[in-house]
């Protein structure tokens, strides 16, 4: 795991430093800006659904789904981040406890 930790950390730092070091006109390209804005949206959305519904190669609906529903309600209620995460965990734990 250490290799993954160090390589990913190095890669993320290299991107930060590169951004600080390249000329500003790189941002002039509208496609670069658009992809830069859309990439986190696509990756995070994919992470939400795969972390909720994927178990290996199978798609399943289990206690994590209840957690996601509660998380969505919490996000809509604009509660702090830690409350969102805690409420989702509690919902999943509750479903597991009763099933």
């Amino acid at each position, binding site marked *: *795991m250490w290799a993954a930790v160090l390589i990913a950390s190095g890669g993320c730092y290299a*991107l930060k430093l590169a951004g600080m070091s390249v000329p500003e006109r790189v*941002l002039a390209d509208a496609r670069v800006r658009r992809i830069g804005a859309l990439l986190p949206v696509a990756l995070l959305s994919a992470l939400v659904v795969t972390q909720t519904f994927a178990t290996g190669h199978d798609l399943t609906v289990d206690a994590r789904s209840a*957690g996601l529903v509660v998380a969505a309600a919490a996000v809509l209620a604009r509660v702090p981040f*830690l409350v969102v995460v805690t409420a989702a*965990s509690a919902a*999943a734990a509750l479903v597991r406890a009763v099933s």
Partner: protein
Amino acid sequence: MSAERDTWPAVRTAVVRDAVGIGVATGAYALSFGAIAQTAGFSVVEACVLSLAMFTGASQFALVGVVGAGGAASAGVATAVLLGTRNALYGVRLAPLVRAHGLRRLGAAHLVIDESAAMATAREDPRAGRLGFWATGLAVFIFWNAGTLIGAAGASAIADPRSLGLDAAAPAAFLALVAPRLLHRETAVVAALAALAALASTPFVAAGVPVLLAALVAVAAGLRPEARSR
């Protein structure tokens, strides 16, 4: 000139107060990162090194999330680095404002994250923007690392994290991160297509890869010729 002298201490106080507030909030968020990393099989030390060395929340959550779900380490690394590309875009915008060179630039680059970029660009006065960048970056760095240590050490004391529903914490964290970005119709459509692509490919490719395939949706949408920039 005199007006500026009169107001600068007040501006400085306001900027630092905001920075500490954001630092405390992200510290709370780091508690969940530490706990999720621990649940995903990362040691307390590995979680702390991630927060110290990677220091960009979404990428850290992605790495431990993908690996924790059984994905290859390489897929986790690729997802984390792809998520880190937005810091490069922030850096391009911040460089002329921060104007750091040599060693200071190496330090400044490490502090380029969502929060410091937002605080630096939220102020019209360049001096306040520069202070906002450094104060927010440093405040988040301190609270983020303290929170990670407490969260990871706390979770390591729990025998079965799944019984507490901690495996549902990661998707909730990703949802909270993406939600503010879904306000425009185009980004909401990209989010939906990316989610569909990831789910549809899950049965056929190795764990972790569906998320990378979803990234192609963003690239395709960004390159779309008829897309208008905002």
